[in-house]
């Protein structure tokens, strides 16, 4: 017994080395997914963020047809990068609404003039309150809302060109 016990510290040490090594070599996943995927959209009403688009309320997202809810901001660079993909989705017949985070109307107007405007409605979330209620942790993010107003999918980060077919598939699944 005593002889075996002598090895315990070494075994413990090796176990720790193994633990740390696995932590070091495991790819780092820092993406925080919303816990609301699969649940209904929290209720909200937001004022209009742009001059030529109406305001947005959660009730307007349960229309019987799945649609996209894009979380963006005029100050966000990847949001400008995903603009062509959103435009392509719009041209494919997808309804897209948006929430602009910590933004101001003149900035949103300028952003839309520069990058195009694929949105039907844009709500202004000046203090990230709705973003928190959605469990969204950054910009850009895109939620697929099914016809009944449930969150079917959350896309974190910008939509790349090769994500577009996947988004279209998921929209089809959500209907």
């Amino acid at each position: 017994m005593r002889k075996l016990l002598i090895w315990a510290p070494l075994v413990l040490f090796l176990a720790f080395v193994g633990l740390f090594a696995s932590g070091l070599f495991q790819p780092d996943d820092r993406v925080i997914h919303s816990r609301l995927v699969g649940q209904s959209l929290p209720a909200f009403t937001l004022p209009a963020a742009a001059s030529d688009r109406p305001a947005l309320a959660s009730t307007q997202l349960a229309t019987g047809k799945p649609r996209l809810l894009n979380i963006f901001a005029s100050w966000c660079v990847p949001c400008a990068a995903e603009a062509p993909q959103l435009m392509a989705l719009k041209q494919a017949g997808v309804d897209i609404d948006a929430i602009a985070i910590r933004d101001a109307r003149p900035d949103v107007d300028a952003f839309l003039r520069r990058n195009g405007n694929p949105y039907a409605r844009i709500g202004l979330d000046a203090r990230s309150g709705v973003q928190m209620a959605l469990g969204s942790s950054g910009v850009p993010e895109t939620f697929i809302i099914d016809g009944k107003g449930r969150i079917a999918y959350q896309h974190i980060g910008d939509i790349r060109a090769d994500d577009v077919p996947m988004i279209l598939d998921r929209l089809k699944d959500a209907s």
Partner: protein
Amino acid sequence: MKLILALFLALMAVPVAAQTALPPAPWADRQIPDAAQERKAKALMETIRCLTCQSQSIADSGASMAGDMRSEIRERIMQGEQPEAIRSWLISRYGDWVSYEPTAAPILWPLWAAPLLLLGLGLLLLRGRIRRKGQK
């Protein structure tokens, strides 16, 4: 000279105007007047993790979203909401990840049991020592 200076200043002002001049949320960096409420809010903010700077609490982080979260927490505390209710609201959005306070979830049982186990081990060792001394 004055004209040149005015022109110079006008040109310098352009990059500033091109940025969003959105002020921080009203209660992001302002204390609640009621000290007891502020203590509650501060204690909660120190155990809520920032979503942008993931190894900081929102009390420490300068990220704009952390400011918005601080403001949200202070406003809710002022409306009389309990800190633990706000924590569970956040956990229902972001998962246990968002809170630094360990929960009673089964995966954490070893964590809660560790002090008892270590104490037990210590007592066992102590007993052995005392017995050996007694035999001498």
